[in-house]
C-alpha cells in the first residue's frame, strides 16, 4: 500500500491511454454521433416542411375545387339563361313567321277576292246588258251606252 514506482508507470500508462483515446477513439465516435444527429435533424426538418407543403397543397386544392365548382355553377347558369333566350328567340321568330305567313295569306285572299269581285262585276255588267237587251228586245248600241254601262259597273 506504499507509494512506489508503480505510480509512475501507471501515470505513463494513463497518459498513453488518454492520448490514444484522444487521437483514435473519441473523434470518429463523436463524429459519427454528430453526423447522425444532423441527419436526423435534417430528416425531421424535411418532414416538417413536407407536412407544411402538404397542408398548403390541400388548402390550395380545396380552394381550386371551390373555384371550379363556382365556375361550373356559373356555366350552368349561363347555359340555362342562353337556353331560355334561345327558346324565347325561337318563339319570337316562329311568331313573326306565323304573322308573316298569315299576312301573306290575308293579302292573297284579299287580292283574290278583289279579282273575283272585278270578274263578277264585269260579268254582272255583261249580264245586265244582256238582260237589258232582252228586256228592250232590241240591240242597244254598246258604244253609245257604254258610259251608262260603265257607271253601272262602278256602282256594283
Amino acid at each position: 500500500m506504499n507509494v512506489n514506482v508503480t505510480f509512475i508507470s501507471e501515470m505513463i500508462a494513463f497518459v498513453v491511454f488518454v492520448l490514444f483515446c484522444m487521437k483514435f477513439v473519441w473523434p470518429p465516435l463523436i463524429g459519427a454521433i454528430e453526423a447522425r444527429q444532423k441527419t436526423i435533424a435534417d430528416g425531421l426538418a424535411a418532414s416538417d416542411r413536407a407536412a407544411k407543403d402538404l397542408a398548403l397543397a390541400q388548402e390550395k386544392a380545396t380552394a381550386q375545387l371551390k373555384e371550379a365548382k363556382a365556375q361550373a355553377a356559373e356555366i350552368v347558369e349561363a347555359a340555362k339563361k342562353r337556353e331560355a333566350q334561345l327558346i324565347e328567340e325561337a318563339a319570337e321568330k316562329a311568331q313573326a313567321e306565323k304573322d308573316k305567313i298569315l299576312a301573306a295569306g290575308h293579302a292573297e285572299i284579299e287580292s283574290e277576292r278583289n279579282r273575283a269581285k272585278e270578274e263578277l262585276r264585269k260579268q254582272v255588267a255583261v249580264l245586265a246588258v244582256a238582260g237589258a237587251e232582252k228586256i228592250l228586245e232590241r240591240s242597244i248600241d254598246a258604244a253609245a251606252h257604254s258610259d251608262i254601262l260603265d257607271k253601272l259597273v262602278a256602282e256594283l
Partner: protein
Amino acid sequence: MASSAEITSQEYISHHLTNAKMCMADGGVAFNYACADAGFWTLHIDTLGWSVFLGMVFLYIFRSVAKKAQAGVPGKLQCAIEMVVEFVNDSVKSSFHGNNPVIAPLALTIFVWVLLMNAMDWVPVDLIPTLAGLIGINYIKSVPTTDINMTLALALGVFWLIIYYSIKVKGVGGFIKELSVQPFGHWTLYPVNFVLEVVTLLARPLSLALRLFGNLYAGELIFILIATMGVWQIFGPHFLWAAFHLLVIPLQAFIFMTLTIVYLSLAHEDH
C-alpha cells in the same frame, strides 16, 4: 481456502491484500519478499498488469467500434459504445463550457478505465489468486483501484492538467493572483489566502485518489472478510455485497470523471 488448516483468517486476509511485487535486487529481477528492502523502486506488477490489460480492453473495444463507426443505422455494439460516449459528452458539456479537445477523451478514458478496474471487484476474491497460484504466482491483487499507486497516478495526471491549463489560460501571474485574492479581500491577507488556496488545490488530487482508493479498498476488504466465512457466504453476504457494488463501482467511476471535469473547468475559468 479460509477453512484450510494451515492459514489463519488474518494470514488469509493479508495474503489477499498483498500485491505481487517486482524489483531489481542483486543485479537481477527479484519478486515479492525479496523486494522488502526495495522501497520506492518496487513495482506492483499485478496492479500494472491488470490496469494496462483493462485499459487495452477498453481501447480495443472502443477503437474497433470507432474504426467502423458510421452515421447510418448503428449496430448493437456501436449503440452501446455510443451510449457511453454520449453520456460522457453530456457530462462534459454540462460542466465544461470551453472548447478543449482534451477534456472529453480524458473523461471517457477515466470513466471507462476506472469502471473496468473497479468491476474487477466483482470477480470472486479467490478465483484469480487460486488460478495464479496454479502457475506459480503467489500474490496477486486483481483490482488495480485498490492500490493507492493506481488512484494516485490518475489523480496526479489530472492535477498536472489542472496546473497546466490554469497557467495556460491565466498565465503564471494570473494563476498566483487567483490563489491570493480570495477568500479574503484585503491585501494584507493575501499570503493567508495563498496558503489556504494552495492547500485547497493540493487537496483536490489527494481527495480524488483517496476517495477512489478508500471506497474500493474497503469494498475489497469486506469481500475478503465475507470470504473467510467459508461456505456460508453464498447464502447471502457475498451476493448482497456484490449487489451493493452495482452502486459503488459505477458511482466511483462517475465521481472521478465528474470531479475531473469540474476541476478542469475551474482551471479554465478566468476571473
